[in-house]
């Protein structure tokens, strides 16, 4: 037993569960790959690659760049942590686009004829939702800024100890 664990790296139950699962995977994969195996394999493995190595790095990079680029624009006026006012509408709008992009970008060629509905409405609707999301976020940010600045002005009026220390 100990030798097995040392050789395998885990207990025998781990191996049994995995082998059982791979047997089922194999059974389904043979059928999944029955027609156009290469294209299906590319889609299957590509799905993981597109998410893990393209989508996730892209949105992480966008988030980091937004923080890096806008960080140095800080003024002397107090600012609330602002990144989430950008993140939240961008995420919500992005996730709508991610799910409904074929309709939004007019890519579903059979759709108008099959459903007797116009596909042209979706881009406008998505843009309108995006505008509302960013607009609401901007409004919330503006209100927060006003609140902070009022508080700062109130602070300036009454001299506080340590007021003259360097920032």
């Amino acid at each position, binding site marked *: 037993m100990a030798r097995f664990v040392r050789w395998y790296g885990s207990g025998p139950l781990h191996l049994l569960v995995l082998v059982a699962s791979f047997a089922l995977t194999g*059974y389904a994969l043979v059928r999944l790959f029955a027609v156009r195996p290469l294209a299906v394999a590319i889609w*299957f493995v590509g799905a993981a690659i597109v998410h893990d190595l393209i989508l996730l790095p892209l949105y992480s990079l966008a988030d980091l760049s937004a923080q890096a680029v806008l960080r140095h624009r800080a003024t002397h006026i107090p600012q609330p942590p602002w990144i989430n006012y950008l993140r939240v509408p961008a995420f919500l709008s992005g996730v709508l686009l991610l799910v409904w992009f074929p309709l939004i970008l007019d890519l*579903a060629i059979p759709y108008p004829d099959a459903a007797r509905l116009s596909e042209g409405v979706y881009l406008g609707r998505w843009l309108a939702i995006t505008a509302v999301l960013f607009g609401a976020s901007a409004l919330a940010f503006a209100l927060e800024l006003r609140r902070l600045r009022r508080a700062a002005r109130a602070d300036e009026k009454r001299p506080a100890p340590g007021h003259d220390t360097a920032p």
Partner: protein
Amino acid sequence: MDSGGRPSAPGSDGPQHPASDEGDAPGRLERVRAAAAARAAEGAARVRAFVRRVERTPPPPGPFRPGFWRSPLRGPWLTSVFGLVLLIGIPLLFVTGLLSYAAYNPGLGALNDQTPDKGLLGFYLFDWPTRPYWLYRLTQGVHVTLGVVLVPVVLAKLWSVIPKLFEWPPSRGAAHALERLSLLALVGGVVFEFATGILNIQLFYVFPGSFYTLHFYGAWVFIAAFVVHVSLRLGRMTRSLRSRSLLTELRTGLADTRPEPPDPDGLVALEPAAPTMTRRGALALVGSGSLLLLVVTAGQSIGGRLRRTALLAPHNRDPGGGPKDFQVNKTAASLGVTPAHVGPDWRLEVRGRGPTLVFTRAQLLAMPRHAAALPIACVEGWSTDDQHWSGLRLADLAALAGLPDAGSVLVESVQPHGPYRSVVLRGNQIHDLRSLLALQVNGADLSLDHGHPARVIVPANPGVNNTKWVRRLTFRT
């Protein structure tokens, strides 16, 4: 995770199993081993040396370095919250998906079965019932809407464990390597299933092959890996969930947001950045993504006044063919059905025991008609409200054909090409008194797009199995 006695690489300080040295069964094992002892030992030593060398190799720069991942929110608790949501959601998706396959009655033959090679994977199939009449509307509406709604949760779950993709060394032995292979099926599978489903409901047929084949077999590949993942991680998930209180997290502001304590899996950042979002903020962000998707999607399956709220869903409007018109899956024109196919020369043939009966539409209209209020529910998840159909009972037509106890009926359409122009219905569907060969809907003759001159409508039947433009019914025992 367990490095099982081998010198563990820096950072992989997983819990060590106490070596329970009970000794091998001496006789047989030793004899087998003796045969190739020398060479095996040499090979094993070489492999071990190689593994040790890899383990000692410092990780390449970038995401493989432990300090690369800096989010202060990543950690087993957050991952487990997303995991718990998926632990409930994914089985519901899987089961409703299996039900949808059963609803097509694939057991009735190749016409109903897009995956005839299913073999053992069809072990669960059963006769699809006709009641409640909204059954398929519910199960498929849940399947599609839930799938759409879970997208942000899947993204969040994958985000929360991304450092594991860049583990170093890539493999710490056989167990670890097998587990990572299973994770490829898990991640590839979940993205593949969500992608094919979401593309299909928008009629964006770019995937390589039949949607039914890809989505059905893909689901089994995915669920095999999902079950392994759950069985290997369930304990860790429950422990992680207990490690912090959800209520406390919901009350914790940004100033008090700290990384979770270091974990053996390496999810928690070694050099965390200052937090820019609370854990409750992250949960709220993902939750509002799901909520927003629910709002812009669910109306197409709920219908009524809510249909218009499904701003981005494909069947969120009436197609505008009059005040009582309703959604169409495939119009006549898109399937090559022309008015010439269903003009004055159109006849309905009814076959059973004895000679074939032939009816004009006028003759059908003169026969005793019955009404039924039934929805159209599509595999794409959208559905209509109950429509008021009027026509001949399939049971009456079976009796006319001399087979009042018919066990099945083959329904054939004038549709010249494409799938689902013929379908087989089962006895329970024929004998439900609401199952009609409809001639009218909502008080008017069927429009061409809704199947004029005659279409089948059966309670709880998937939309495509309610054949339009019927030209022949063949009842069988």
